């Protein structure tokens, strides 16, 4: 089937190629409304980075409030105006900051910025396709994402400020415009932005899935795909199945807000005034939200896992350990992630029996995660490890995934969740396991595939500095938070000044804020490196990391259609690193077994009896020759 598809596409490409010779692309069609997957990937990446910087600045703003709850900073009033009267961020705006920080980071950076960038860049390049299945839809996907980003940010410019009910926007808080300022126009904009975002995400996802399924080059069967592709493919499936449920939830919320329905509302007295809602259930929204929300955290982490697997294998000069187990654990995570959403709702008043069931499914999902971790460690074992910045970030990803994943065993246990729910323990947990781990996976990807995207290398030393500062500071920020949670300090508190029991944490808060500020400043090192290297970096060679995968067989200079001639055929899996008997310590996927007789193993021919026979004759003649000598 894949052969057929490739054939069709080649024909199409030849027409296109002829066409291209006649006129050069205009600036608009090359850089703005581009339909080339590589350009769209760059658009996603740069928009994602921009959003990440904005969300990071928001986090520094609220960290300043937490560290110095009783000090005034006139500069804040100058910068934020009415949101920070008298030099202090107002409580409502504080909540807006945490809400928009969460929303941007989860959706705009770690979903669109991560999947959008690497699925677009890597899927066609690594499976051997000229472009995405539907380049036009791909372009639409980016522009809807861009529009969603603009609308989300525009909510800072409405009178009452952006949405501020937390990134989970639980009604009734988000449904009643009078409940808090942020539930006014800001909330409306949030909802509109999310609907556009989901549309963008679905268009992207459908494209990724159909490209992986139909447009693989000759010889690229599913079990020869790099783990990046497996991860991005399964992520796209998750997104397609989960995101529409969020839209359903959001649309009903829009109805409750604007049409007067009572899907989520019942028995409400707001400021002493009875509201005319009856028969709805706020819990319904939580079910709908987390039905997306939980798969969402795997949408965030799986591409990071795939990228790290690939980067670690390349830089350890060693095949990824347990390739099949890695794929099956990704599949396991994909399937299980749909039946664990209730662990966000143990203490919401949901039937306790249901809580018990969700606890069982939740702890099961720890098994594939554990397998992945052990396999990464086994990949490093007896490797020949090259410390490129990408490798360091991939390692950081593993370290964070372990640290944050283990605390998930506490939170997934309904009994322990009673006292830990919504405390800083949760904040520490998810910032390590899906925040830091995913962003490190993304940065690993950026450093690793920068030469592919821009044809130039990033500065290695600056990358090292960026890594160590970010890595150490991230631990300094999130490690102490566990203990705050264990002391019963709730998240989303504007100040800890009102409780005698919490005041002892003020010094820790100051420490955390300064660690966060240093981490944030060190990102400027990355930004400088990224944008300067784009134009002035050292010119990249075709395969700078001596990697096996297909994307490194394309020319450094981009061209529409990726390969100048025929698309290469794939003969082997992507992880033949340091194979005994091979000339070099890597054998690209495009090298047929007939050219590597000295390094072939019986295992390579499990489903190929003719090949096995050839190998046997080769080894027997080799032995015979040796005996003659």
């Amino acid at each position, binding site marked *: 089937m894949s052969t057929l598809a490739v054939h069709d596409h080649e024909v199409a490409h030849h027409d296109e190629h002829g066409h291209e010779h006649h006129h050069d692309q205009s600036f608009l069609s090359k850089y703005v409304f581009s339909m080339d997957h590589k350009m769209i990937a760059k658009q996603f990446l740069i928009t994602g980075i921009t959003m990440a910087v904005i969300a990071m600045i928001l986090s520094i703003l609220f960290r300043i409030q937490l560290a110095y709850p009783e000090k005034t900073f006139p500069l804040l009033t100058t910068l934020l105006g009415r949101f920070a009267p008298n030099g202090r961020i107002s409580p409502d705006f504080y909540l807006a900051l945490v809400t928009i920080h969460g929303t941007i980071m989860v959706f705009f950076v770690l979903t669109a910025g991560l999947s959008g960038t690497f699925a677009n860049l890597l899927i066609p390049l690594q499976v051997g396709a000229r472009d995405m299945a539907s380049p036009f839809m791909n372009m639409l996907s980016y522009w809807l994402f861009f529009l969603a980003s603009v609308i989300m940010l525009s909510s800072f410019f409405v009178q009452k400020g952006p949405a501020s009910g937390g990134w989970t926007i639980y009604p009734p808080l988000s449904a009643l415009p009078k409940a808090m300022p942020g539930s006014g126009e800001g909330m409306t904009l949030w909802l509109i932005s999310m609907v556009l975002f989901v549309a963008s995400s679905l268009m992207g996802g459908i494209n990724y899935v159909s490209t992986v399924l139909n447009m693989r080059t000759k010889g690229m069967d599913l079990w020869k795909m790099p783990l990046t592709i497996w991860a991005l493919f399964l992520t796209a499936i998750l997104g397609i199945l989960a995101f529409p449920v969020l839209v359903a939830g959001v649309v009903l919320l829009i109805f409750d807000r604007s049409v007067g329905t009572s899907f989520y509302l019942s028995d409400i007295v707001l400021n002493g005034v009875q509201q005319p809602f009856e028969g709805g259930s706020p819990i319904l929204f939580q079910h709908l939200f987390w039905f997306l929300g939980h798969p969402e955290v795997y949408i965030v982490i799986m591409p990071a896992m795939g990228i790290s697997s690939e980067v670690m294998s390349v830089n350890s000069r060693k095949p990824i350990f347990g390739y099949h187990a890695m794929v099956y654990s990704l599949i396991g995570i994909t399937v299980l992630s749909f039946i664990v959403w209730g662990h966000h709702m143990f203490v919401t008043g949901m039937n306790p029996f249901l809580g*018990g069931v969700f606890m069982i499914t939740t702890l099961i999902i720890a098994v594939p995660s554990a397998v992945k971790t052990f396999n990464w460690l086994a990949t490093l074992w007896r490797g020949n490890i090259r410390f490129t910045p990408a490798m360091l970030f991939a390692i950081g990803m593993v370290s964070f995934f372990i640290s944050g994943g283990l605390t998930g065993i506490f939170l997934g246990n309904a*009994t322990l969740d009673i006292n830990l729910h919504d405390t800083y323990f949760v904040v520490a947990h998810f910032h390590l396991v899906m925040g830091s781990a995913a962003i490190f996976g993304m940065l690993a990807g950026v450093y690793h595939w920068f030469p592919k995207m821009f044809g130039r290398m990033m500065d290695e030393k600056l990358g090292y500095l960026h890594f160590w500062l970010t890595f150490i500071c991230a631990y300094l920020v999130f490690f102490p938070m566990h203990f705050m949670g264990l002391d019963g300090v709730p998240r989303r508190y504007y*100040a800890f000044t009102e409780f005698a029991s919490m005041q002892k944490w003020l010094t820790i808060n100051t420490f955390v804020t300064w660690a966060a500020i240093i981490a944030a400043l060190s990102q400027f090192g990355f930004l400088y490196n990224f944008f300067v290297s784009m134009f002035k970096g050292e010119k990249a060679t075709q395969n700078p990391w001596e990697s096996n995968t297909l994307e490194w067989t394309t020319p450094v200079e981009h061209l529409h259609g990726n390969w100048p001639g025929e698309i290469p055929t794939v003969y082997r899996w992507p992880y033949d690193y340091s194979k005994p008997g091979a000339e070099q*310590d890597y054998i690209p996927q495009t090298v047929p077994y007939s050219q590597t007789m000295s390094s072939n193993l019986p295992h390579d021919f499990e489903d190929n009896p003719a090949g096995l026979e050839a190998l046997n004759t080769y080894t027997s003649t080799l032995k015979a020759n040796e005996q003659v000598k």
Partner: protein
Amino acid sequence: MLLGTNLLMAQTDAGSAATGQAEAPKVDWTGVAYYVLIFFLICLGVAVVGKILKVYDLTLKMQGKKGLNWNTVMATFCIIFLLIGLYGAYWSFTEQGSMTLPEAASAHGVKIDEMFTVTTILTMIVFFITQILLFTFLFRYRYSAKRRAHFLPHNNTIEKVWTIIPAVVLTILVVFGFFTWQKIMNSENLKDDINIDVTGHQFAWELRYPGKDGVLGPKDFRLVTGTNNLGVNFKKKSSFDDLKVDTMYLPVNKSIRLNILAQDVIHSVYMPYFRVQLNAVPGLPTFFKFVPTITTAQMRAKLDDPKFEYTLYCNKICGGSHYNMQKVVRVVSEAEYQTWLSKQKPYLNDALRKELHFASANEQSNGSTNRLALNN
């Protein structure tokens, strides 16, 4: 340096805060410029160090020696990070770990704490082993041009082992956790349970205790008025002796049933010392049962803090003053509880009595019906 900048920041703040109320606080631009300058100086420093390293590397190469081996440098950093990180984790566990909650002050809380200890031990073993392996592998197997990596694509036996072991450990935790959870959440109602209504609204908690009959009267959100802020239905006799209470007093070693309600948005009743938490959801009454075991006085002695109070606070984002929505909880002996209870005022106060006369007359003429209450 950190402390120094803090100090400076504080000074600039104090200066600006002193200006009058009518005047908008003035920005100390020299202070801002100072920080920007520091940042640029650091950047410059980084650039200079970078250049020096480059020059050093080049001179080494010119002398025919090998340049700096960055793989070794990074591998060394990894092992240093591991050592410092392990010490840091240990320090954090002892220093901040000692600042966490004391032993549970409730019967079920003890079980939660046991479970927490078991989970902590198991996960910490995994944490230390995996992190140590990760960073020692990085150092041990750093790049060398003379060596090739060991080609090891898979090993089914060891993969089975490390699938089955976590599965078994997690099964134990799940079974243990499942039954504890069921026990905590499905406790039967006893006759002598003390029923207490906790109602959350922006931004306070309202407490209602039953009177002598031990039964809380029904409520309906439609009956809410300025004086009857909970909407208690006074058509029912059981409502008459209900008490309006300001501080939550609980007798020690008695089964308490908190009926948890919310009027406007979702709140969450959180009493971490008792390991109690449940959301207060409008339209969905919930309850949490627990037995406090340590009185406030005992806890004060234990913590050596004469001002210590148990508190109940909101743990679900509910609006601008979410961070200050608390109630003091006092656990006392049965005798103290009874004396305190006898001093509490009934919910049906004079103002409400007066209002209800008019209200009941109105209601009759409107012919509106009573809806059944939600709780009980």
